[in-house]
């Protein structure tokens, strides 16, 4: 509750100060955040909110933050963003794909406010986009999963069929297959990013079908709980570390670390150097972190996984390196060829070996 109270006080001060506030405290900056879920989701919104707090702490009172949670991706989004801009925010982070068009529409009306849209592809003079190369983390997960599975069946809880999710499935599959040619992927699509009851059911269904590794691209910890109940199943934290479930079932995780990016962008606003950019960072800059690999993973596998991570971080290895064929057998990448960002950004096909079909 402390977070709420702090925020309330900050916001109160701002309201009471009224319009004069911005001038009287000339150097202070307000950063706004629009969240798709509650900060307590334990995954996606949780990490954005953590980063917001770290950023606020970093600037030691020079930056105020405001946020609005549970903003649906409907007409309400545009109003929420507009009201935030009207309330005096200097920079606004809109943290879900569905806010893309609303963000651009509001940005047009507020040329002096900077906007940062997560995971989108449309930009403007005052709109930047940012996203993380989660597929790099998926490669490490796939490696551990392929080594650890005894049933050779890996379950994957997928959310909505968009390129980011498909990229993640491909990356995990390629690296699991590399170390274990017999590996099979079972994929369940839930058409939601966050529904703990459905996620728990999906995890159980996968486990009952023989999967002893469950990967998830949904945000709650419900699959972790289901795996813990089953006993001999391993999982990976998604978006946040989910370390409550370590060392078993959670053996590692992909963590979205937005804090450095938020600090950098707000600093740019303070310095007056902010420019519209497209950021797509991965392990190398720390935007994607690999959570502590627990002792449930044998030391040699852990060492290999860390080596893979280091190779990706150093730019020596790209998770999508040929030879790779598409699912239908048609060649995609030749020996040694590396996928270009354009293809990755719009990825809508599985690689060869995955037996399921991409839903549409």
């Amino acid at each position, binding site marked *: 509750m402390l977070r*709420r109270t702090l925020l309330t006080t900050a916001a109160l001060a701002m309201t009471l100060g009224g319009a004069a506030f911005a001038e009287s405290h000339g150097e202070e900056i307000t950063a706004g955040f629009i969240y798709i879920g509650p900060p307590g989701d334990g995954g996606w919104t949780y990490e954005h909110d953590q980063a917001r707090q770290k950023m606020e702490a970093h600037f030691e009172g020079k930056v105020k933050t405001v946020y609005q949670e549970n903003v649906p991706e409907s007409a309400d989004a545009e109003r929420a963003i507009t009201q935030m801009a009207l309330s005096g925010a200097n920079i606004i982070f809109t943290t879900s794909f569905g806010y893309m068009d609303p963000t651009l529409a509001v940005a047009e009306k507020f040329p002096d406010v900077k906007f940062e849209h997560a995971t989108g592809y449309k930009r403007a003079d005052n709109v930047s986009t940012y996203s993380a190369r989660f597929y790099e983390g998926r490669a490490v997960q796939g490696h551990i999963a392929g080594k650890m599975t005894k049933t050779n069946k890996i379950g994957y809880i997928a959310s909505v069929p968009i390129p980011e999710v498909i990229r993640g499935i491909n990356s995990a599959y390629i690296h699991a297959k590399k170390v274990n040619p017999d590996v099979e992927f079972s994929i369940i699509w839930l058409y939601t990013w966050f529904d703990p009851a459905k996620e728990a059911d999906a995890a159980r269904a996968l486990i009952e079908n023989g999967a002893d590794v469950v990967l998830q691209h949904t945000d709650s910890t419900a699959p972790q709980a289901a795996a813990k109940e089953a006993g001999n199943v391993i999982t990976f934290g998604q978006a946040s570390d989910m370390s409550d479930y370590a060392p078993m079932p959670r053996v590692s995780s992909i963590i979205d670390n937005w804090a450095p990016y938020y600090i950098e962008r707000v600093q740019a606003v303070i310095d007056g150097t902010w420019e519209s950019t497209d950021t797509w960072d991965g392990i190398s800059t720390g935007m994607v972190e690999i959570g502590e690999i627990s002792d449930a993973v044998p030391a040699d596998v852990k060492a290999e996984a860390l080596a893979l991570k280091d190779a990706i971080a150093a730019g020596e290895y790209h998770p999508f390196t040929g030879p790779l064929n598409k699912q239908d057998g048609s060649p995609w990448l030749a020996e040694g060829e590396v996928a270009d960002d354009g293809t990755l950004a719009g990825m809508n096909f599985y690689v060869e070996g995955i037996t399921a079909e991409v839903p549409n």
Partner: protein
Amino acid sequence: MIRLEKRPQPSQLWTAITPLVAVLLTMIVGGLMFAALGTDPLEAIRTIFWDPLFHDRFASFSRPQLLVKAGPLVLIAIGLSIGFRAGIWNIGAEGQYIIGAICGAAAGLAFYPSESVLIFPLMILCGALGGWLWAMIPAVLKTRFGTNEILVSLMLVYVAQNILISVSTGLLRNPEGMGFPGSRNFKQWDATHNAEIFANTGMHWGVVAALIAVIAAYVLMARHIQGFNIRLMGEAPRAARFSGVNPARIVFLCLGIAGVLAGMAGLFEVTGPAGQITGSFNAGYGFTAIIVAFLGRLHPIGILLAGLLMALTYIGGELAQLTLGVPGASIQLFQGMLLFFLLGLDVFTNYRLRIGHKEVA
């Protein structure tokens, strides 16, 4: 002993003042809730009820937004209220709203990228038709088999929601959308954009349609024979049958009107404020409209006012979240309280409170 005694006639006084008393009570109890949450209650109430209208920084934006938010609520609630007056409980307006939006949007998208002026009227027509068709399912089942319309219309909401998810990731997906779900954005296609008629007023075609619906419903219920039949069927079904009212026809009429209006509301929303078909463009307007219909005590003018009041609590609630940091959930609770108080106080319209024993007479 306290007991209720039926009034010979509904009290005019209570009909007029219960909404005001309900709002007042909500402010008091809601204020206590905000105080318990650590927010200054006066500040919170002022933010919710006053700031959207008069705040020097927000009001110029949020005043038009009241119309944007109230438009679909009023349009749907008008349709529902007519059925409620006849005792026909269509609680599936959300589904009719979704299907209307899908049909209308699909009709438009079929002609992409034509800039013909005929497209938008065609889309409105198809939207109305879609909502009508979806409402005809419970109507046909009720008249042919006597199936309960409350449950059929409610079940159809979930069917509609699944259709919505399916088309937004499949059939109507924007081919230039980089593989993301969601249709083309109608705001970027002039021929289909339900833009504001006068800039910065919030007045789009959906709001105009809502106002027309208010007037039409008023005329229908107060002046037209079918309006009389509808009321008769609700208040005295047996008398209605004796006077030659065909119940099946009333069911088709009431559900049909509700479906058409909800379908149109969906189309206006998706081509206007929402902009595109996505899995979550529908923000529960169909359910909220039921509350609006009751807050407006099923009277067209009352619904108009109730729609605006509801819009005020939404927008004011958002402002309170933003500026005071109150949780969004408290606003939901606040709206629930408002409804409870109104429903509870409603009893005094038809009954009077007596203290003491029943007199022998």
